[in-house]
């Protein structure tokens, strides 16, 4: 009966109920879309930089991250025991060094990344980032150059680049390798300075037999902290260090934190508006109904039951608003996930200057929708405190006199 009363009360003043439900729909739509866009942007950054390039967890020789010299390399055999460890799906050895590359009279300092082509193809789909030419075939000598490097140095497939740099323990690193492909690492900064070669080539170039500077730890679940801890426990941490992406890229972590705070601030404003809008409705509803509540209490309905009816009414409206809001939000979120917003003009320049791809897809993470649906419910419950207090202190005679 209480539910029936609450349900029918909603249809007593259809316009007011419609305004209330509409404001909730708008709030859910806006909050879910905005948050999905924000988290989608972070997800894209993490995908491009972390999961598709650096990995969530890396192993280095102690001190390598502070001083990236090849002298801080380690023997691959030092981490052999990790291959069968729970939570680790693969170990991808890499050499990260620097050299000057030249073609004719043009030279440029670049970051050299030596990697295992087969492993990187299998796990981070590196081959799919090749936009021109071919991926490494049969581990033959060759180079993949970032598309930015190509543009700056006006290079073409088949050109042979001459390398000059410093190798392990002060040795001279020199060599000449042909360009086999151009790669788009989805991050403008990386594209401008990255040249990729096979691990064997890099070991030969830098005189690092059986040694690497980095091992990317592939994880087969979302809990990279757990993998980091277990990895650290399994290796000699006096010699090696295990770092996660937040430690390696504190600026990215900070950027996300700052941006999240901004987003949270906007959401707080939105939720304040919604809270006051809902409070206005609840205030009107309670004032309008105080006569009726007085009658119900006078004829013998306990105040708690009257409160239940009033709260049920707003909960039913909130439920309808939240469900419709989620239904309306879903196609928007899905559309912009499939067709990310492509920033152009000044915005594109600004984003790329920070080293990120100027594409913003929305996130399809259902927890975003659930979180905001939950927040709306909490707001509904909070604004109903007024109704509870009002009914609890209601004097039926005074209420009926109105």
């Amino acid at each position, binding site marked *: 009966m209480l539910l029936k009363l609450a349900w*029918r009360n909603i249809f007593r003043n259809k316009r007011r109920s419609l305004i209330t439900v509409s404001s909730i729909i708008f709030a859910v739509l806006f909050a879910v879309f905005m948050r999905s866009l924000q988290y989608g942007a972070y997800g894209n950054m993490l995908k491009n930089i972390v999961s598709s390039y650096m990995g969530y967890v890396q192993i280095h020789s102690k001190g390598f991250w502070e001083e990236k010299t090849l002298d801080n390399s380690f023997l691959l055999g030092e981490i052999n025991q990790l291959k069968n460890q729970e939570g680790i799906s693969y170990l991808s050895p890499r050499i990260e060094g620097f050299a000057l590359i030249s073609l004719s009279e043009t030279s440029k300092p670049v970051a050299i990344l030596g990697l295992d082509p087969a492993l990187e193809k299998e796990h981070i789909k590196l081959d799919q980032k090749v936009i021109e030419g071919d991926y490494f075939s049969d581990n033959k000598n060759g180079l993949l150059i970032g598309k930015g490097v190509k543009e700056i140095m006006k290079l073409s497939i088949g050109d042979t680049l001459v390398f000059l740099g410093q190798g392990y323990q002060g040795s001279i690193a020199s060599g000449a390798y042909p360009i086999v492909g151009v790669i788009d690492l989805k991050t403008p900064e990386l594209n401008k300075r990255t040249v990729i070669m096979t691990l064997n080539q890099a070991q030969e170039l830098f005189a690092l037999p059986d040694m690497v500077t980095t091992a990317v730890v592939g994880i087969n679940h979302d809990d990279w902290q757990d993998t980091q801890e277990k990895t650290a426990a399994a290796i000699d941490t006096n010699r090696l260090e295990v770092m996660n992406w937040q430690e390696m890229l504190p600026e990215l972590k900070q950027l996300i934190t700052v941006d999240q705070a901004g987003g949270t601030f906007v959401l707080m404003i939105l939720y304040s508006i919604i809270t006051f809008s809902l409070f206005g409705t609840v205030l009107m509803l309670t004032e309008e109904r105080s006569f009726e509540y007085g009658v119900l209490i*006078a004829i*013998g309905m306990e105040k708690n039951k009257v409160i239940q009816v009033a709260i049920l009414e707003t909960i039913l409206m909130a439920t309808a608003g939240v469900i419709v809001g989620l239904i309306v939000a879903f196609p928007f979120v899905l559309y912009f996930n499939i067709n990310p917003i492509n920033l152009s003009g000044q915005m594109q320049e600004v984003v790329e200057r920070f080293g990120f791809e100027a594409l913003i897809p929305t996130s399809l993470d259902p927890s975003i929708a659930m979180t905001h649906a939950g927040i709306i419910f909490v707001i509904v419950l909070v604004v109903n405190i007024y109704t509870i207090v009002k009914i609890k202190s209601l004097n039926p005679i005074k209420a009926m006199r109105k």
Partner: protein
Amino acid sequence: MIQANNIHKTYNDGKVQVHALRGIDVEIKEGEFTAIVGPSGSGKTTLLNIIGGLDAPTLGEVHIGDTNIAQLSENELIDFRLNHIGFVFQSYNLIPVLTAKENVEFLMLLQKRDEAERNERTTKLLKAVGLEDQINKKPNEMSGGQQQRVAVARALASKPDFVLADEPTANLDSKSTANLLDIMLRLNDEENITFVFSTHDQRVIDRAKRVITVEDGKILSDETK
């Protein structure tokens, strides 16, 4: 039996104290059909509210049966009203979103009576007030007289010890008033239901079996016909 002893009620209207009741003693026995009459502001509605446990006296006590209602907590008082007192209001005050049947059934649901009993009693009461063919109509689909008859049926639904009616005919035309009085008198005669109502409607006063006249917060006369 309702027993009100030395009832005083004083309101604070701003800085002015209003003495609505000044020492009322009244006893109403089971089966009476009593009208409390008096001009506007005489205190008749205040007396009715105090008897019904809707308002508390400044001084004095009200006993209904063996219960001193001043000693009941707020929830106990609400529960007492539900199980012992039926209310009929001047403006009917039916629940607008419920049908006639649901309005009558409402108090029985609060009393947690089973469905069969609820259905049987609702049908019986709506028949008794002549509205058996209007059971699915909502208040806004009924005339004032019909709504007040539903209100009487609702007041009786919880099997109260007595029914308090505050100016029940004030918003009704002559025909509806006569009709309502016929119903209430028949219920009083045939089922020995006690009715106490406040009124200044001469048509009601003429048909009341006992008339208590209140003026300036005091009982001026108490006549049994």
